[in-house]
């Protein structure tokens, strides 16, 4: 068989046959490019905050602070991510660099978009929990709780006292597990690799407890419309006390490792500053907003469940830099432990879910002896329950900020529309503001300090 003749390749091939060049064409995404520098007029130059974000002039940075007059041929546009260990998943950040100084930043998202809001319209209210719990996978119990609260508000039902306190207990423990994982990844991003191991070690304590209670370490589907899926195990109090005994000492170790350590403070202090006006204008919530000194915590400002009956402090920062955001989270772990101690004292006895067989399934044992229970069970798991028409917006304070659920019912057994207000999605808008004028190495610290969860961003 004849071998095909090798193609005639000239030593200097034209650009359109160069494989490397062709590859670049295939991955370029027209509208996601940063616009030409020559397109930036005087007004935009003054208000420039990156290609995505142009703040009104009042709140914008003084253009004299950074050398924005740099001609285009001296700046360089690079992509950070989406496959980059410091981007916490699949965040892609386009950076315009002048040397090593960041000028413009554009977060590009959507790599993890799976249409969970559309999926929710096909799931019955009882099934919805399994869908939403996978969004912000580091704080699944918050997702379930806000979803359940929205459904309950539409139904107009109150859950039993014990279910409310169980929800608070689980959510505060989840906040601790999410924050220690932040400490772990934050340390790793900044080069303190041993912190990575410590943070995961502490998180393991919490996940082991979740597994004992819910049967799963993540994606629990434990908090459901009408209450929680199962009562706490018999020895839950000892388990929680064990965790609460261990954690304070570990947090002191973190203080030694980070808070009082010169290298860490020099790396994080004064980096990625955002002002209170900017943060409010950009819809930033959670620890990032509180780091600017604005004490917006939904638990305190719009108390839900029984947060008006427990004592805790809203931790705020003063500067709004990376260090403040770290310090707020490590102190919020302490506040959460304080809340858990109060929950331990106040946990009432009683039902863990509402005793309304139109909404929650009957206990398994009843099915064997009661025809009615069997019918209810069958109806619930085939048709589900119907929810009166209406629309509500319910929000809780997740470890990352305001987690909201906008739920519309048309009177059927599935949501007509579910919208998820993910805190990470809005918080990413702070990136162009925080990164401008800093170094690329600081950019890693800044992305980390936002603690974005891309499952929550893209949904």
């Amino acid at each position: 068989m004849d071998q095909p003749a090798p193609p005639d390749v000239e030593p200097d091939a034209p650009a359109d046959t160069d494989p490397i060049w062709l590859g670049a064409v295939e991955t370029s995404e027209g509208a996601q490019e940063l616009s030409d520098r020559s397109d930036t007029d005087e007004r935009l130059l003054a208000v420039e905050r990156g290609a995505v974000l142009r703040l009104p002039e009042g709140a914008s940075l003084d253009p004299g602070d950074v050398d924005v007059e740099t001609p285009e041929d001296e700046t360089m546009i690079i992509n950070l991510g989406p496959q980059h260990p410091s981007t916490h998943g699949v965040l892609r950040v386009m950076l315009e660099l002048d040397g090593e100084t960041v000028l413009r930043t554009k977060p590009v998202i959507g790599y993890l978009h799976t249409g969970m809001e559309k999926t929710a319209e096909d799931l019955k209210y009882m099934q919805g929990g399994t869908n939403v719990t996978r969004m912000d996978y580091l704080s699944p119990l918050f997702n379930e709780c806000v979803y359940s609260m929205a459904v309950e508000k539409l139904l107009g039902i109150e859950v039993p006292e014990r279910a409310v306190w169980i929800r608070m207990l689980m959510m505060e423990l989840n906040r601790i597990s999410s924050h220690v994982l932040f400490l772990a990844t934050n340390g790793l991003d900044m080069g303190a690799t041993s912190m990575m191991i410590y943070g995961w070690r502490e998180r393991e304590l919490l996940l082991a407890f979740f597994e004992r209670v819910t049967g799963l370490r993540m994606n629990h589907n434990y908090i459901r419309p009408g209450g929680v899926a199962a009562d706490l195990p018999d020895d839950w109090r000892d388990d929680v006390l064990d965790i609460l005994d261990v954690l304070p000492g570990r947090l002191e170790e973190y203080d030694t490792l980070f808070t009082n350590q010169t290298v860490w403070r020099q790396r994080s202090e004064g980096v990625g500053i955002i002002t209170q006006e900017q943060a409010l204008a950009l819809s930033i919530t959670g620890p990032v907003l509180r780091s600017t000194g604005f004490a917006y915590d939904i638990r305190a400002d719009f108390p839900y469940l029984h947060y008006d009956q427990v004592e805790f402090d809203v931790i705020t920062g003063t500067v709004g830099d990376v260090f403040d955001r770290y310090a707020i989270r490590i102190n919020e772990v302490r506040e959460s432990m304080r809340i858990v101690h109060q929950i331990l004292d106040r946990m009432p006895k009683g039902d863990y879910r509402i005793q309304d067989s139109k909404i929650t399934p009957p206990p398994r044992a009843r099915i064997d002896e009661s025809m009615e229970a069997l019918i209810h069970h069958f109806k619930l798991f085939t048709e589900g329950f119907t929810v009166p028409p209406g629309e509500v917006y319910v929000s809780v304070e997740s470890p990352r900020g305001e987690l909201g659920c906008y739920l519309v019912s048309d009177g059927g057994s599935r949501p007509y529309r579910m919208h998820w207000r993910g805190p990470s999605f809005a918080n990413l808008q702070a990136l162009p503001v925080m990164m401008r004028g800093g170094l690329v190495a600081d950019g890693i610290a800044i992305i980390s300090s936002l603690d974005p969860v891309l499952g929550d961003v893209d949904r």
Partner: protein
Amino acid sequence: MTWSRGQEVLHPARDAYVDTVRRLKEEEGFVLCVDVTAVDYLETPPRERPDGIAPERFEVVVALVAFDPPRRLRVRVQLPASDAHLPTLWDLHPGVEAYEREVYDLMGIIFDDHPDLTRILMPEDWEGHPLRKDYPVGTVPVQFKAAPPTR
């Protein structure tokens, strides 16, 4: 103004939308805009609204927060399917930037004067707006071939 399950809702007309949000921000202290979303009421099921506001196919929902005293408010605007345009809130609340892009991407509502109205979650060459009710789910084109002949 209506109440939905104890939550305050405003229903401005489309022309008064930006002015309403501006007044809320400047006079009533709603400085934080936490959410912009939209609902596609394809067959316009009955929904709560004051007299004088006709139900349309699309409804844009904006969630606002005031702090002194703490208060929440929703703004719902009706948009006809034939002309799904709405002025942007970006000059008042720059933080709606990503949310309006998301609504445009998934629901196909055009926000006039938005600085960068491009797709945000879906790929850029995507056709259609997936969260619309007439957007079919699960129609991956399948090519059926004749079964192989038996030997």
